[in-house]
């Protein structure tokens, strides 16, 4: 079971570190990361394994979104199924 974490905002030092630390707090294993910086905008998409979370999904999602708000970033956390169902037959 995986979730997709997206992070969009102004580039700054330590964004990846902060987000992955928060994932680790919930025992979500980061499997894959794609990121790019265009002009000064930072965009990252992270695939995390959520099958061994030490808390429920909602708590992790809210915590990551809050981390985003505190750092001026837009963070979304969504179960992979919504992407799979929409884009694959």
């Amino acid at each position, binding site marked *: 079971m995986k979730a*997709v974490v*997206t992070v969009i905002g102004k580039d700054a030092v330590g964004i990846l570190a902060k987000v992955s630390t928060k994932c680790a707090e919930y025992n979500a294993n980061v499997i894959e990361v*794609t990121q790019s910086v265009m002009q000064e905008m930072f965009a990252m*998409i992270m*695939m995390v394994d959520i099958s061994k979370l030490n808390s429920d*999904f*909602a708590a992790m*999602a809210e915590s990551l979104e809050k981390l985003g708000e505190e750092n001026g970033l837009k963070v*979304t*956390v*969504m*179960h*992979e*199924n*919504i*992407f*799979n*169902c*929409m*884009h694959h*037959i």
Partner: protein
Amino acid sequence: MINVYDILETIRMIQDECLDIRTITMGISLLDCIDSDIDVACKKVYDKITTKAAHLVQVGEQIEREYGIPIINKRISVTPIAIVSAACKCSPVKFAKTMDEAAKAVGVNLIGGYSALVPKGFSAGDIELIKSIPEALACTERVCSSVNIGSTKTGINLDACKMMGQIVRECAERTVDNACFGAAKLVVFCNAVEDNPFMAGAFHGVGEPDCMINVGVSGPGVVRAALRKYPDADITKISDVIKEISYKITRVGQLVGVTASERLGVPFGIVDLSLAPTPAVGDSVAHILEEIGLEKCGTHGTTACLALLNDAVKKGGVMACSRIGGLSGAFIPVSEDAGMIDAAKSGALCIEKLEAMTAVCSVGLDMICIPGDTPADTISAIIADEAAIGMVNSKTTAVRVIPAIGKKVGEELDWGGLFGCGPVMPLKKESPSKFINRGGQIPAPLHSLKN
């Protein structure tokens, strides 16, 4: 593997283009609650609804959180109450109050099924229920009502049309203090469907299982945004673009329905693939029609564009889910659609054009404010016209008009929220009373004889 483009597209559809699941509706059969003692029957109704739907809202919110997609409404539909109340032989208003209490207890915002099915005549309980609708809707908050007065197979019950014109007026008169809102909770159908998840017309048909989950999708904003990328494409391409986006929207409906069904331990019924607008900016069906190339919704060409839209939505959605049902198509409620409100205010959209549009859209004349002095017979005749379109075209049609008591053309009624606001639209002045008062049954059309 999911690619970056797909992820960003999904997020954009939800965050910027108003993609949402409009409703998860739990259909609950009340056939096992029938009792000749109304108090006993109501207790059974309350217990069954609050047991079956105890976790509906909680599971809806959980899915919302997990998939990051808003689920706007969690609702309940029940067996038409006229069937349940027939054995009681007294006013069925107590059932409406019970439904209202049960809806509040489980936290759903609307509950549908204060209904009667009279396409070919009245059976025990039907007339009592119909007569009680104005009181039931005035003394409850969340109860919705519907009456089916005709079908392709049976023809149109003109006696019921006559009665419903009066009932619609009374519903508005009894709720004048609340912008005549009673009439907005009442739908008069021809060819009503039994698995419709959308309010106010939802009820749980007698052919349905004991309990099931139906899902209504939405997403006019997503369709418009997709079309905006093809300003110069020919109309066949436009149809293809709508099909592609409709497929994606419907897939989400299927996912949400299957997940909700698993978690609630209730069978999954159907996805209603509808484009349901809201008054929010960027969530309008009228604006899709304008994006296709009309200066204003309601002008010449509107019916053709709507026919294409309605058809393409179904073609795209049909492969995306295992079972389709409900009303499926594009809704055209005037007060709930920012583009329709604009078009009606500017005079481009009139009731005659709306009537033509109902021949090719998913339902019928919906959320239209009419002058407060409209005679009941005129409302009955509007219902009969609309039912005739449904009967002859073998489609569902409906009338949900709101007589704006004390108001004239040019003024408006405002409910706020998803119900929006609507300008009072002009009607014909000439009387249809003699026709309506003939009573009887309009026979079923020749093409109903298919066997």
